[in-house]
């Protein structure tokens, strides 16, 4: 029985701390993610949400603490983080598509360079995900020829083309206007329904309430509350959570 539980637990974060100089951004974060979970991280600006998600795939090096992937400490298991990073995809607020490449090349380059797939196989996989996010028609376009929502959908396809086990999304809709937010959220919703494990930093409370299996509320570098969306949105135990969500709950 214990073994099965360990299998389900895909990512575990233990006592994660991150300092920038003297400023401590993360003050000991603990939480775990099960396979198939959609974890939404919410919280006020500057609370450390983005730093946390960037620490998970080591874009920021944690000051101390442990990140365990499938029960093993990542820093001990993977001498070269490249392999781990292909299993933990990342989508950025500012899309960060490679500006010198077409949409298709964006989704192919990682598979060819990092996973050493041959070009035709990489192209097939890329097309599969581009079709999935509804961008298959645009494979010849350059990123600067696309709208924000289109760029973000390509960015999701690029991350998915490496067929990761976990997808990290760092405020994927914050740079988009309200019309484009919808198209990106739809893609994310579909991925969640397909059973992909996702960790999403978001200000889209409606999305969190609808899709998340767990909501983590971060305030001033610590997890203030962690619960199912029903509890967080209807009946939060921490007064800080209640305060943060008061505006959202008023409108709904």
């Amino acid at each position: 029985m214990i073994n099965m539980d360990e299998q389900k637990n895909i990512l575990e974060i233990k006592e994660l701390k991150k300092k920038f100089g003297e400023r401590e951004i993360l003050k000991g974060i603990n939480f775990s993610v099960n396979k198939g979970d959609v974890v939404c991280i919410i919280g006020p600006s500057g609370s450390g949400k983005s730093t946390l998600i960037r620490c998970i795939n080591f874009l920021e090096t944690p000051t101390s603490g442990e990140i365990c992937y499938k029960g093993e400490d990542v820093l001990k298991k993977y001498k070269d983080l490249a392999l781990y990073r292909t299993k933990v995809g990342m989508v950025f607020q500012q899309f960060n598509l490679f500006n010198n490449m077409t949409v298709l090349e964006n989704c192919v380059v990682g598979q060819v360079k990092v996973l050493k797939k041959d070009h035709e196989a990489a192209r097939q996989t890329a097309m599969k995900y581009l079709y999935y996010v509804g961008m298959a028609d645009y494979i010849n376009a350059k990123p600067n020829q696309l709208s924000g929502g289109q760029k973000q959908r390509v960015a999701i396809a690029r991350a998915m083309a490496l067929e990761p086990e976990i997808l990290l999304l760092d405020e994927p809709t914050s740079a988009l206007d309200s019309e484009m937010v919808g198209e990106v959220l739809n893609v994310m919703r579909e991925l969640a329904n397909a059973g992909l494990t996702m960790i999403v930093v978001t200000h889209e409370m409606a999305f969190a309430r609808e899709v998340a299996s767990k909501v983590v509320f971060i305030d001033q570098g610590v997890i203030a509350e962690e619960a199912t969306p029903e509890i967080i949105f209807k009946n939060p135990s921490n007064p800080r959570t209640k305060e943060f969500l008061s505006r959202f709950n008023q409108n709904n």
Partner: protein
Amino acid sequence: MTTMPTTFFEWVFFLLQQYGGLFVKGAVVTLLLALIGTFVGCIIGFVVGIIQTIPVDPNTGTVKKSFYRCVRWLLDAYVEVFRGTPMIVQAMVVYYGSMSIFNIDMSAMFAGFLVVSINTGAYMAETVRGGINSIDPGQTEAATAIGMNHFQTMRSVIIPQALRNIMPQIGNNLIINIKDTSVLNVISVTELYFSSKSAAGVYYKYFEVFFITCVIYFVMTFTVSRFLRWVEGRMAGPRDYQLVTYDPMQDPCGHFPMPTRKEQD
């Protein structure tokens, strides 16, 4: 016996007839020095720029860290020394120094290529560093996030974008090199200036000869300048794109058809 020319233009035509071949040879040597020197200099610049931007993780070992620091210090020293001394002096030091210290008897021409290349390399190193810094850090982050290492990121993502940004500066370097290789006459490289001086000495017609030289230099730099503009325009790529429509039912196995050659361009 033909009568000697009297007016300025008669002299110019006379000198062109007499020494046309000499001018052409000199111009070819100058152009070769500038082109090859700039090309090799660019390669040096890119290598130095890429090495200087290797990120050093705070968790790397002390040995590795101090190794990187040493390499960086050496490269900085190279840039400062070759940027901070005149090329005419470098030519003398390299040509005569190699002979007296290392006992290497290199030809003046080889010394010329060497000096132009490493001199340009020092300038290009700084240009490339600037070019790399000009690219949004998000590009590097995205490449890191899909598992690419520093060299893969540089080769596939950063350098192609940086190259476009620094093309005007590469053009500058090429044009400066066409003109400044004239200083190599001090080690008797037979480039355009050296050839002109030889031609001028025969009839003591310095103004007429250097008028011709002046025109040749300008034609070379102007041609190169226009050519580089054209290359820049090409690098920008097409401004629009073709939509490609796929019918997923076309192949029941879900394979996407290969785009035709035209679609890829």
